């Protein structure tokens, strides 16, 4: 690694750099805060010739995803990016792309959903689309964002997977924060990521009838295939992570990552950039002799059921930090984690912390409060099952 490969960039710029290395043929995207810089940088790269791609100016996110599918259907590599309301406007196309087995890669800047209108970060946009059949990864920092853009294509286009892939970055906290990143050499990435090949390809030589309808006699089989492809992608995700690390030098531990979990009595689970803050809190509490651990969930789909079970099996209590809420029940990550827990013969008690919605900061003090709650629960004390952290006003009574 040389000095010239090190750049000081924002999360959005890291996404653009990673995407360029993956050599997409067409970029079809509509700008939306806080994703805009991704699209701006890519359009500059197309303009200055450093990225040989078509840049399609589409009139909406619905068109962006539709164009991306069209690109994929002729065997070309496509990229799009969006956020929040834009992702929701794409919702119809999300199911279409996954059902058509078009391995589109998309960056999503996690942002609150209206109303109240907000441009700031939380996870209610992408988590509301968990069932759309896309692989979803949540990255912690700009370097992981860049690396995952490259891995995303390799995983999505794998012949056993052929499933679209969403790379999620926390709005502003990650998209607009500048960090130093290492940019791999193009030759190395070319070696890692072969050209896209797919059985779902329109061509003159082999004409196809694509995207057809089915009667009830066949529809479920196609849906089962999608499910199987997603389940099979777990092994592919791990292989690709290993191969990427071997070639480029950074490993992300596949489906989840852990910190100080081996002897932990209580474990907190996080997604995305807040994991970095939580790691600092773990260090501080460990220094006081408290047995706390941190589990970073990287993928929400496919869900890391086995990986989570293996890590938490010796813990007394676990907590899940949700920057989202499914109104009328609990945080969506918590629901998913609980489903993995109840499949264990015996499992730790679990608690939910709802925090950081609509761009509210999640501070070290907030995370310490979560860990202290979990430690109290581990001693048998009663704590709230679903707790809203750092509310500005009294909410009880």
């Amino acid at each position: 690694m040389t000095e010239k490969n090190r750049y000081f960039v924002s999360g959005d710029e890291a996404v653009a750099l990673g995407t360029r290395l993956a050599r997409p043929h067409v970029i079809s995207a509509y700008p939306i805060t806080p994703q805009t810089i991704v699209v701006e940088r890519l359009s500059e790269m197309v303009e200055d010739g450093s990225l040989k791609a078509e840049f399609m100016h589409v009139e909406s996110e619905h068109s962006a995803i539709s164009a991306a599918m069209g690109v994929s259907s002729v065997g070309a590599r496509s990229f799009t990016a969006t956020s929040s309301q834009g992702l929701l406007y794409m919702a119809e196309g999300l199911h279409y792309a996954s059902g058509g087995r078009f391995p589109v890669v998309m960056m999503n800047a996690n942002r609150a959903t209206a109303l109240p209108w907000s441009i700031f970060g939380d996870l209610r946009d992408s988590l509301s689309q968990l069932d759309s059949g896309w692989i979803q990864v949540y990255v912690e920092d700009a370097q992981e964002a860049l690396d995952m853009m490259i891995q995303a294509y390799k995983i999505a286009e794998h012949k056993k997977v052929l499933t679209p892939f969403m790379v999620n970055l926390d709005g502003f906290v990650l998209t607009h924060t500048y960090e130093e990143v290492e940019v791999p050499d193009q030759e190395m990435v070319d070696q890692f990521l072969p050209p896209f090949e797919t059985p779902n390809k329109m061509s003159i030589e082999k004409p196809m009838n694509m995207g057809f309808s089915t009667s009830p006699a066949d529809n479920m089989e196609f849906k089962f295939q999608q499910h199987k492809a997603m389940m099979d992608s777990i092994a592919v995700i791990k292989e690709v992570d290993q191969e990427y690390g071997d070639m480029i030098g950074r490993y992300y531990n596949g489906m989840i990552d852990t910190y100080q979990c081996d002897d932990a009595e209580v474990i907190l689970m996080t997604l995305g950039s807040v994991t970095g803050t939580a790691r600092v809190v773990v260090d501080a509490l460990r220094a006081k002799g408290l047995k706390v651990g941190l589990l970073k969930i990287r993928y929400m789909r496919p869900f890391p059921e086995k990986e989570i079970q293996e890590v938490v099996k010796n813990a007394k209590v676990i907590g899940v930090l949700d920057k989202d809420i499914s109104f009328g029940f609990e945080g969506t990550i918590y629901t998913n984690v609980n489903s993995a827990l109840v499949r264990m013969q015996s499992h730790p008690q679990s608690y939910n912390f709802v925090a950081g919605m609509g761009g509210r900061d999640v501070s070290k003090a907030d995370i310490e409060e979560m860990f202290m709650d979990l430690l109290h629960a581990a001693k048998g004390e009663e704590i709230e099952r679903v707790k809203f952290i750092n509310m500005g006003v009294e909410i009880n009574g």
Partner: protein
Amino acid sequence: MNRPKVTEFKKAKHINDYPTGPGFQGGHLVDKNAGWRTFRPVIDKDACVNCLICYMICPDGTIYKSDDKVDIDYDFCKGCGVCANGCNVNAIKMVKEEL
């Protein structure tokens, strides 16, 4: 006849028999589709000047070039009458189907 043939439909036995996603080779016909035809177009080969307008305008692509000017694939013709309407020499008549 340069046209896809109707082949027998084979029900998939294993999930791997399905294509990856709803896409398959073009022209794979497993069924005829002409059951709702009430009038059938009949070409008067003596009147026909082989201008190929009917071949061009058939909305279902059921008229094809043949050794004897043009012929109609009655397995797929729906009897819409566009060809008869478009024929400049009145060489196509719509004849009521007998049940």
